[in-house]
């Protein structure tokens, strides 16, 4: 297993080394396919009444390392739902199944046969492992010892048979009534990381247990999957459907194939309304948008050109009025992610709308197949202005890039996956729909505002980088929100063009690869032409929040020199205490004092702007290292206000309101709200008095 302790020195050294070669990085060609490590050929049959799967699987694994490997590690993730002793259930504290029909809902998977292709039985060479904790009862990781090691570059072929029961409480995978979302359902290999992968010193298997917050890390390969189930079902799956075979027993076999992916999921529901549309790159992207993207990224037109994709929407009939919303969101995601990071390489994208009561399977990402999530309420005005379904779709399509292609380790470094996707999602939503995330009854909520609102000083600020199972208290905040705000802050510090090239280069370099945090740091420093190690070390590697505050602003008549002066005349003076400077003093000169504080632990350099009456503002740089800084200015102009971070670059700041302060108070805002409140109270008085 990969070590999780990281000294910061190497991070900074890596970033420094990368930054030493300043200037934009040369564009790497966009990889068109993955180096296939493992190929799967699976035949599975669904017993829709018993909610059971019976499957046969042949896998071919190539040893990617330079040393012989004598064992294989498998994910058996359906066993997370086997009983309440699994790590998944222990971590989720019972909340995931509370109120559900547990007795009828337990799932699991058993391998009934495992042999090498030459017939050697391996059933006696297996054991369950629990690399992440001391839970002997967890059966989500299976280790298989091979009779002989697989030499470097050579293959081993295994034949497996398995029986599985899908969980009935539908958390990520399972069923509700006749709706099935079948994910993490087959014996799937973990990742053998050769030495050097994500900073590893020695090669080894990286195969984590199924956790309450993470489930993705696997190797790329080609899939051929044949799914047999009653013919009343409408089916969707990872990849392209290559054949439908009607069987004599009233079932249909649906055959899907997909190359260059690291997982396979499928869904079935007789009620699905199937909508097929084509994302035609030439229609969806204008020549001007191609030109602008190529200029922004410093790439050729050919490099940024997109390809056509068939979008399959499997919608619940009661959500039919939202059909075009779903399609538009999927197409927007394909367009903007494709332009910014690299073209979507697959032929299909399937968007699944979970059935009512199946919300636990919503918002999931599998290669070329995502689950959305909407409500009837969003069918109609005014709630149709709330972009929640769009948000979910754009987010999950974003995972096709940050996890699907740039396949970082979600268990150990979830910020590279969920956080990058959250940052990217906000950008696509703003680009496609404008800055307003939700609007109803005259109230508006901005995309960025939504993220910033949850960034509160009172929350638990773990380091953003950390294993998913360790960041348990405020996972969503630390991994999703803070990463997005951190990357947005970085973008505002570097500029849009540089940040766009950072993200593009990172994607190009690690498309179909397994990068770690250091790999991103290196790319960022390299493309930015400066060592950004300090930024990541402060914002990602350490806990703490950012909050700058203008604590006080005073401006008064300059009393002139006081004390014992050189000419021997003694005078006693005192600084005027009033903010408006009405006290006696030098009428031609104002003395202004500003106190700026750093309230949080996070230190980032910041600008402070002093705004004067009748004069242009002055800007001062502050490195933020001390807890406070005082600025004094003496001159002919009265100080009106002081503003920390006047260009709003540090969106990580937990409180924007205290970033500015004026010398003289203005009661208009309080009066506006006071009178409004009084008006509401009058209304309450008259209503309850009816």
């Amino acid at each position, binding site marked *: 297993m990969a070590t999780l302790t990281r000294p910061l020195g190497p991070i900074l050294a890596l970033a420094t080394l990368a930054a030493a070669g300043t200037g934009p990085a040369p564009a790497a060609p966009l990889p068109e396919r993955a180096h296939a490590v493992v190929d799967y050929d699976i035949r599975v049959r669904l017993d829709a009444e018993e909610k059971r799967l019976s499957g046969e699987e042949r896998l071919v694994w190539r040893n990617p390392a330079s040393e012989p490997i004598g064992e294989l590690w498998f994910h058996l993730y359906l066993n997370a739902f086997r009983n309440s002793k699994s790590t998944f259930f222990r971590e989720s504290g019972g909340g995931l199944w509370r109120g559900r029909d547990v007795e009828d809902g337990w799932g699991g998977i058993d391998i009934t046969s495992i042999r090498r292709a030459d017939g050697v039985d391996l059933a006696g060479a297996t054991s369950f492992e629990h690399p992440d904790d001391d839970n002997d009862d967890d059966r989500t990781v299976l280790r298989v010892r091979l009779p002989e090691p697989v030499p470097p570059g050579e293959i081993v072929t295994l034949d497996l048979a398995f029986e599985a029961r899908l969980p009935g409480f539908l958390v990520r995978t399972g069923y509700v009534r006749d709706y099935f979302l079948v994910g993490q359902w087959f014996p799937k290999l973990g990742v053998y990381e050769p030495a050097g992968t994500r900073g590893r010193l020695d090669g080894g298997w990286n195969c984590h247990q199924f956790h309450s917050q993470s489930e993705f890390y696997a190797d790329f390969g080609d899939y051929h999957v044949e799914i047999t189930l009653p013919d009343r079902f409408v089916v969707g799956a990872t990849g392209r459907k290559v054949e439908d075979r009607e069987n004599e027993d009233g079932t249909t076999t649906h055959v899907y194939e997909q190359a260059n992916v690291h997982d396979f999921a499928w869904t079935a529901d007789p009620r699905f309304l199937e909508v097929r549309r084509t994302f035609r790159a030439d229609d969806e992207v204008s020549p001007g948008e191609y030109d602008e993207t190529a200029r922004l990224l410093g790439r050729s037109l050919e490099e940024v050109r997109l390809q056509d994709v068939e979008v399959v929407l499997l919608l*619940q009939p009661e959500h039919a009025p939202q059909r075009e919303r779903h399609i538009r969101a999927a197409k927007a995601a394909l367009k903007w992610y494709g332009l910014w990071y690299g073209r979507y390489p697959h032929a299909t994208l399937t968007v699944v709308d979970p059935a009512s009561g199946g919300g636990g399977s919503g918002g999931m990402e599998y290669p070329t197949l995502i689950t959305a999530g909407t409500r009837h309420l969003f069918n109609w005005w005014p709630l149709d202005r709330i972009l929640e379904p769009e948000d979910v779709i754009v987010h999950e399509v974003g995972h096709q890039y940050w996890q699907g292609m740039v396949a970082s380790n979600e268990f150990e470094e979830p910020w590279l996956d969920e956080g990058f996707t959250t940052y990217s999602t906000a950008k696509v939503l703003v680009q496609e729909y404008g800055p307003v995330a939700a609007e109803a009854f005259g*109230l508006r909520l901005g995309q960025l505002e939504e993220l*910033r609102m949850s960034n509160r000083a009172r929350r638990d600020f773990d380091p953003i980088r950390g294993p998913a199972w360790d960041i348990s208290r405020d996972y969503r905040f630390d991994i999703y929100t803070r990463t997005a705000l951190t990357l947005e802050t970085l973008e505002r510090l570097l500029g849009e063009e540089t940040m766009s090239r950072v993200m593009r280069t990172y994607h190009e370099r690690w498309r179909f690869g397994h990068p770690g945090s250091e790999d991103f740091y290196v790319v960022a420093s390299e493309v930015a032409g400066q060592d950004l190690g300090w930024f990541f070390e402060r914002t990602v590697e350490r806990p703490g929040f950012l909050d700058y505050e203008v604590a006080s602003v005073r401006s008064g008549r300059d009393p002139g020199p006081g004390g014992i002066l050189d000419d021997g005349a003694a005078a006693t003076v005192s600084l005027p205490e009033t903010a408006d400077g009405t006290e006696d003093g030098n009428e031609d000169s104002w003395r202004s004092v500003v106190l700026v504080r750093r309230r949080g632990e996070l230190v980032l350099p910041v600008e402070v702007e002093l705004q004067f009456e009748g004069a242009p503002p002055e800007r001062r740089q502050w490195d933020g290292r001390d807890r406070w800084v005082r600025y004094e200015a003496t001159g002919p102009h009265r100080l009106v206000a002081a503003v920390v971070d006047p260009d709003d670059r540090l969106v990580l700041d937990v409180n924007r*309101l205290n970033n500015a302060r004026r010398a003289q108070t203005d009661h208009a805002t309080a009066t506006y709200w006071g*009178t409004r409140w*009084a008006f509401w*109270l009058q209304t309450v*008085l008259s209503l309850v008095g009816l």
Partner: protein
Amino acid sequence: MRTLAALTREGLSEAWAARRVVLLVWLIHLVLAAAATFPLWQSLRSVVGSLPEADVLRTGIVFGALTDLAEMRPGLPGAFGATLVAVAVLGVLVGAGVNGGVLEVLSGSGERRSLGQRFGQGAGRFFGRFLGMALLVGALAAIVGGLAMLPFAQLTRSYFRTGSGPGWLAPLGGAAVGGLVLLLALLVLDASRIHVVRSDAGGLSGLRAGLALVLRHPLLWGGTWLANAVLVGMAVLLFVLFRQAVPTDRGALILAMVLAQQALVFVRTGLRVALLASETALVERLRPSPRPGATVGAPTARQSGSSASPVPV
């Protein structure tokens, strides 16, 4: 329809004649609201007065700025909430007094007592009965309304869980039933209050009489209320249009907004008095008061001072 128009006209005419009582009620509400708001305004002023980033709040509700503000003054949201609850409780008490005062003024137009005297005496005389009636009817309406909405709530829940069923008719039906129960409660309360003022009856007998009056003539009562509600709606619409047209980012414009708010409150108060006057007129038609000197309970063909014929009961 003509009866409703006549009742509405009569109510408006009575309210205009009693405009000083409208002014008085408006003032009472304004003073109470202002008193409850003042400490909050002071607290708000002390924190946002010097923060330019808070100026965005002059454009309306900005969630990000409000969240920041709540973090800077953690007690502020609680203070607003507590004030709201306190004012709501106060509103029930004030409502009992105000309704008594207004009805006393409306029922004694020929008297020599000053308006203040009549209002004060009415408020004091009927306070206990009106308060008890309001609490009882409020509790009953909550129970009956809750029970009536229960099946709709179950249908709605089932619809959202399974995606099948009556669709949006379920929540809409629930809302309609709840609204009807509420309206019935309000009309019964008004009818009961008028009956109590006219006959100096006790609270419970007033409620019985009020309920009987409304249930026997639901269209007349509902129509009278609806005509008044349309006028209130028009006033609210005008106010909303004004608010949308006029920004509030400067002092003078904030003053304009305040004037518009108070104009709306004043008109709303006037229309409430008009509704009570219309309903009083309606009761007068349904159960005319005995003429002075006549035997109580004797049939009355025509009421002096009333221009319309009684409505057949």
